[in-house]
C-alpha cells in the first residue's frame, strides 16, 4: 500500500500540488485522473522520488519514502517499476538488454537465469521473440509493452504508469489496459496509473483519485464516479464523451 499524507509541491513559489492525501491499495488498479497540467505527473514524480515534496509524506507500506536514507531509498526503489509516458527505453540497448538491465544491476543471477527471466517477462506482455530488436525498430505499442516488461523484471511491489495509452490507437490501448490489470492481479502489486482516458478508468480501474488544480478533488471507487455530485468530476467525465 502507498499512502500520501498532505503532500504539497511548489515550483518557484507556485504551488502545483496542494495538500494531497490519498491511499493506494495493494492488488488493485488505482487510477489518478485529471486534466493535463493539473498535477498528476508531478504527484507521480513525488511518489517515485524524482521530485521531493515541499511538505508531506509518502509512505510505502509503513516506510516513510520522503525521509529515508539514500541507501534505504535505493532498496525501496528496487521494488518500484515504472512505465513512462514516452517509455524511456534505453536507445542504445536491445529489447533484451533493456529488460535485463535491472537484473544485471541488482541481482546475482547468471546470464542464463537473466535470459530466462527476460523471456518470461516478454511472454507476459506477449512480445516473445523480439529480444534482439532495438527500440527504434519497434512500434509505439510494442515499446509500451517492452516498458512494462522492464518494469516487472525485478520482483516489484509497486507499478507506476504515466499515461500508458498516450499515442496509442484504441485497440492497442485496450491491450495495454488488460495487460496492466492482469499483471496487477497476478503479481498482487500496487498499481497506480495516471490517465485521462475514461475508457481505461471504467475498463480496468478499481479506485480513482481525481486531481483538479493540484488538489485531491474526489476519491472513491470506480462504480461511484457516475453517481458523484462533484461538479468538476462530472464536467471532466462529460468532456470525455463517454457514458
Amino acid at each position, binding site marked *: 500500500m502507498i499512502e500520501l499524507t498532505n503532500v504539497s509541491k511548489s515550483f518557484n513559489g507556485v504551488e502545483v500540488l496542494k495538500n494531497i492525501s490519498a491511499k493506494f491499495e495493494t492488488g488493485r488498479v488505482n487510477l489518478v485522473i485529471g486534466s493535463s497540467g493539473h498535477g498528476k505527473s508531478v504527484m507521480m514524480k513525488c511518489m517515485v*522520488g524524482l521530485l521531493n515534496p515541499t511538505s508531506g509524506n509518502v509512505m510505502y507500506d509503513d516506510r516513510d519514502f520522503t525521509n529515508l536514507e539514500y541507501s534505504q*531509498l535505493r532498496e525501496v*526503489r528496487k521494488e518500484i517499476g*515504472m512505465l*513512462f509516458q514516452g517509455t524511456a527505453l*534505453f*536507445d542504445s540497448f536491445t529489447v533484451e538488454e533493456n529488460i535485463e538491465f535491472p537484473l544485471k*544491476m541488482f541481482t546475482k543471477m547468471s546470464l542464463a537465469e537473466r535470459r530466462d527471466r527476460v523471456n518470461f517477462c516478454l511472454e507476459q506482455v506477449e512480445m516473445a521473440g523480439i529480444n534482439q530488436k532495438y527500440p527504434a525498430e519497434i512500434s509505439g505499442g510494442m515499446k509500451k509493452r517492452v516498458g512494462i516488461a522492464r518494469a516487472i523484471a525485478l520482483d516489484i511491489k509497486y507499478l*507506476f504508469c504515466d499515461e500508458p495509452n498516450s499515442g496509442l490507437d484504441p485497440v492497442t490501448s485496450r491491450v495495454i489496459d488488460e495487460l496492466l490489470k492482469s499483471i496487477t492481479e497476478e503479481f498482487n502489486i500496487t498499481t497506480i496509473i495516471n490517465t485521462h482516458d475514461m475508457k481505461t478508468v471504467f475498463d480496468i480501474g478499481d479506485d480513482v483519485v481525481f486531481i483538479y488544480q493540484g488538489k485531491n478533488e474526489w476519491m472513491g471507487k470506480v462504480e461511484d464516479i457516475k453517481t458523484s455530485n462533484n461538479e468538476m468530476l462530472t464536467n471532466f467525465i462529460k468532456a470525455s464523451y463517454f457514458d
Partner: protein
Amino acid sequence: MSFFYNFGNYILFLKGMFSKPEKLSVYIDRTITEMNNIGVGSLSIVIIIAIFQGAVTTLQIAYQLISPLIAKPVIGSIVSDSSMLELAPTITCLVLAGKVGSHIASEIGTMRVSEQIDALEVMGINSSGFLALPKIVAGLIMIPMLVILSIFLSNLGGIIAGEASGILTYEEYLQGARESFIPFNLFFSLIKAFTYAFIITSLSAFQGYTTNGGALEVGASSTKAVVYSAVSILLADYLLAQLLL
C-alpha cells in the same frame, strides 16, 4: 551569479558521481565501451591532424629560420618541442572537445529529455555516476594515449615534410629532436592531457545531464559543451604553463 550557480552545480554533479557503484562489473563494461568510443572512435581524426600539424609546422619553422647561420637540426628540435609542449596536447584536445564533447553532451542530453535518466533514478541507480563516471575514466585513459600518438605522428609528419620539400633530412630532424629532448616536457604534456581529458568529459557530461527541454536544448547543450570545454582547455593551458614551466 549564473557562473557561480552553474559552477556550484558542476561541483555537486562531480560529488554525486562518487558513490559506491551498484555493480562494479557493469561500470567496468561501460568504461571499456566508452574507451572504444572515445579512443578508437577518435583515432582517424587524431592521425590526420597530428601528421598535418607536424608537417605544416616544419615548413613554417623552416620558412622563418632557414639561414646559413642556423643549423638545420634546430628545425627538428623546435618542431618536436612544440609538438610535445603545445601542439599535440592542446590542438588534439581542442579537436576532441568538438568530437567527444559534443557526442557525450548530446547522448546524455537526449537521455535526459526522453526520461531515460528518470528511468535510471526510479530503478535506484545513481544516474550521474552510471552515465558520467565511465566516460570520465575512459577519457582519462584514452585521451593521454591519443596525445602520445599525436606527438609521435606530429614528428613523423615533420620528418615527411622535411624530406619531401628537401628542407632537412630525417637524420637532421632526429638529431635536433634528440638533442633538445627533455623528459620533463613529455611529463608536462601528459599532465596537460589528463587535465584536458577531465575537462572535456566532465564538462560535457554535466552539460548533457543538466539539459532541460527538448531537441533544441539538446543541441544547445552540445554547443555549450564544446565552447566551455575549449575555453577551459585554453585557460588550463595558460595556468599549467605558468605553474609548471
